[in-house]
């Protein structure tokens, strides 16, 4: 088991290293003048010169690479021209918003796919199964950005049920920042209005992400449930006279969960991409919107930093899954050892 985890750790480090190489090439080798690239489009000659010297861009590439990697190791991701702060400070500020959106969407994604899959698995090939399959298939075909705007159109412009964008009602004062997660901070401040306010703002962005991911989750869970239905332990439970609901939640849920979690690690890249789009559409102040707004004004360090950070996220999720698997499904342990 330890050897397995070590191998995975080495793999994770290699992934990060290769992404660092890619970002180095994109920011230092491809642009005709890397200093001008990092300084942004409207930078003065003096600024470009300062950046050239500061980042050692006049030195040979191998030397640049070494100092670039050393900088990364220290957590130095460059500075943003737009915010005039270090990119790592900016990321720290915007990351909680992204994580909150990701986390809430993910929980609903799991719950709803499980619910739909359970409905579909009751009679495979039946009418309900067909309808659910069709709905999830259409859901995947809807472009995220279009879905987000359509939801805004329906629930804000037409029905006036939900807010258009942003993370918190403008007129109210946000709870003091403790964790950066508005849902948690609201509760810590004891304010239910703030809690429901932020929940309302979360609803549409989260729904947009969930609807797009559903097809994969539902399909996998459905297949897993159908497979489990005929297993001996389920038949035993049924024979004991347990209620179908109890069998589903107490016995089958765990086993049906592993495929969807595996798929999630594979889908992580998509999720990050969807989150960026959703943040842009809903003006959600997370790292995706931050990088995108910087990109718009030709401030590229945050974009490069986002590439590194999201890959780090991917590596962490993968390692976490390796650790979580044996807990959810003890049978895995023997495979990993």
């Amino acid at each position, binding site marked *: 088991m330890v050897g397995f985890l070590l191998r995975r750790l080495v793999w994770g480090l290699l992934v990060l290293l290769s992404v660092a190489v890619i970002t180095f090439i994109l920011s230092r080798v491809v642009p005709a003048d890397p200093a001008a690239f990092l300084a942004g489009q409207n930078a003065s000659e003096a600024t470009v010169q300062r950046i050239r010297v500061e980042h050692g861009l006049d030195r040979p590439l191998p030397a640049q690479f070494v100092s670039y990697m050393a900088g990364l190791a220290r957590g130095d991701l460059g500075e943003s021209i737009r915010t005039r702060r270090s990119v790592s400070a900016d990321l720290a500020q915007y990351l909680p918003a992204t994580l909150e959106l990701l986390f809430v969407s993910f929980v609903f994604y799991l719950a709803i796919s499980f619910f739909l899959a359970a409905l579909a698995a009751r009679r495979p090939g039946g009418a309900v199964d067909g309808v659910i399959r*069709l709905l999830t298939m259409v859901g995947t075909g809807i*472009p995220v950005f279009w879905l987000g705007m359509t939801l805004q159109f329906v629930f804000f412009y037409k029905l006036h049920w939900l807010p258009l964008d942003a993370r918190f009602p403008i007129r109210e004062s946000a709870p003091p920042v403790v964790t950066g997660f508005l849902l948690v901070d609201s509760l810590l401040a004891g304010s239910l209005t703030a809690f429901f306010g932020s929940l309302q703002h979360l609803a549409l962005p989260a729904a947009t992400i969930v609807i797009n991911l559903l097809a994969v989750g539902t399909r996998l869970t459905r297949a897993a449930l159908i497979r489990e239905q005929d297993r001996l332990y389920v038949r035993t439970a049924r024979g004991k006279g347990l209620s179908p609901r109890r069998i589903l939640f107490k016995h089958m849920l765990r086993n049906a969960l592993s495929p969807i979690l595996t798929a999630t690690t594979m889908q992580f890249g998509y999720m990050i991409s969807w989150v960026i789009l959703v943040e842009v559409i809903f003006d959600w102040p997370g790292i995706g919107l931050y990088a995108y707004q910087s990109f718009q004004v030709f401030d590229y360090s945050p974009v490069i930093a*986002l590439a590194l950070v999201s890959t780090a996220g991917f590596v962490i999720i993968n390692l976490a899954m390796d650790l979580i698997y044996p807990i959810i499904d003890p049978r895995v342990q023997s495979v990993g050892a």
Partner: protein
Amino acid sequence: MSVSAASPRRLKAQPVGVLLPLALVVLAILVAFTLVPGLIAPHNPIALAMSDRLKPPSLLHPFGTDEGGRDVFSRVVFGARYSLGVAIAIVFVSALFGVLYGALSGMAGGRLDNLMMRIVDLFFGFPALVLALAIAASMGRGLGSVALSLSLIWWPGYARLVRGEVLRLRERPHVEAARALGVSRFVILLRHIIPFVVQEVNVRITTDIGYALVAVTALSFLGLGANSPTPEWGLLIRDSRPYFGSAWWYLVFPGAMIMMTATASSIIGDALASRRPG
């Protein structure tokens, strides 16, 4: 319910039978849009007509008009070439490269295979959109950058698929027989393995074109791809944003077009998958 009822057949999702004809109709429409847009579009997709700004759908303008008075329907018709064209290019380039890579990896076996597959794993984790942003930042914006970044993300899927198939097929009797006869590895690959792989790859290509279309339009929506006044579908939706509270048609029709295309491509892919033998 008996144990034997758990046949793999039941696990396989039912092909969406009724929808296949509909999907084929959508396909025919798209082919027409791409090949002869001039015959279908009633208006010029680029020329401005400011007196017709943001008109709702009518007989004259079935999808309404945009902020420049241009016919949204005509822009959608002409846009198929750009959006779908780039999506198809991405999928074919990725498939070509991925098939070669996967086949080589599978045939090589051993350490080289292992190394080649680890490289594939690397690409899986990389978020497409972030890479596209970084590439557009570094190399400039345009449909070319979009095609490049999405192809970089797309090929590993084919490599993995094909390598798995090759490993499976290598053990088949006809390949073993060829090997025993002393046929060279290269010829075995070309004549006895690739033809079988092609079926799987075709299914994947069909489904992927829809996904690639969604990805291409998403990048254009963010302003990484085509520039105005190109009637690219994602760009149309981007342009519709300032008006979407009042001019719903401007948002709805281009998006519906993307959605229909993508769904049709998964339905046709499904149908192909359920027909293939073994």
